């Protein structure tokens, strides 16, 4: 196995770029499904960091943590999409700024 050729900053910068794009998506979009997909993007950026540092230390623990993050992403997507379906059935909308039943 060849040693890692790239410096860890490469992976940190890639992860930072994906994370920032995900945050922009969560904060600026109105569609709830796009917001949920941006959250998936953020979790994915975190996974790149975990795997990159796992490779950096030659240790497999970071990859195990990435597996747990993927598990959480799956659970979050299932529950979130269920909530979106239930909400859409009641209000016929997908826009986050029209979900204001608890606002006064």
């Amino acid at each position, binding site marked *: 196995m060849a040693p890692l050729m790239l410096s860890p900053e490469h992976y940190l910068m890639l992860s930072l770029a994906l994370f920032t794009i995900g945050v922009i998506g969560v*904060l600026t979009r109105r569609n709830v*499904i796009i917001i949920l*997909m941006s959250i998936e993007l953020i979790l994915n950026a975190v996974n790149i960091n975990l795997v990159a540092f796992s490779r950096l230390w030659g240790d497999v623990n970071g*990859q195990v943590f990435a597996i747990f993050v993927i598990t959480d992403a799956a659970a979050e997507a299932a529950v979130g999409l269920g909530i979106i*379906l239930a909400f859409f059935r009641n209000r016929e909308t997908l826009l986050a700024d029209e979900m204001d039943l608890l606002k006064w």
Partner: protein
Amino acid sequence: MFSQAVFYFFAVLAVASAILMVTRRNIVHGAVFLITTLLATAGIFLQLEAEFLFVVQIILYVGGIMVLFVFVIMLVNLDVSMRLVQFNHQRFVAGTLALILGAQVFLAFKVGRGMLPHPAQQVMSPKNTEAVGDALFTHYMLPFEIASILLLVAMIGAVVMAKRRV
């Protein structure tokens, strides 16, 4: 050299399709671009010699979670929603704040780059799947069981949420 070319190819692919995912008007296009980003990330995992995660990423993320997303988009998609304004009122403030957050972390990396360990010495075990399974079923036994309970709870929650009459 080859490793660097692979990294830059997948990194540019991931970032470009992530930007397209956030900005597209059509949700289905957004989902397809997110799939491209996830596949590019799987390529990065392969370049980092995490073969097990490479396969898990493709099977679970692209084959499982994204299919769920596309199904829900099919169930709730409205043609009207494509003609509405896609960004909320605070979009400029929110975008600027997110970019400031990114610049802050970037600066932190620039300042702290000398403290990162030198990468060239470590080598991974060639039996990646065996090593991951070994760690998962010895050191991480309890978190693994808790994750299975979490998935059970999420499954029940999703069924309850999506049912018409509880």
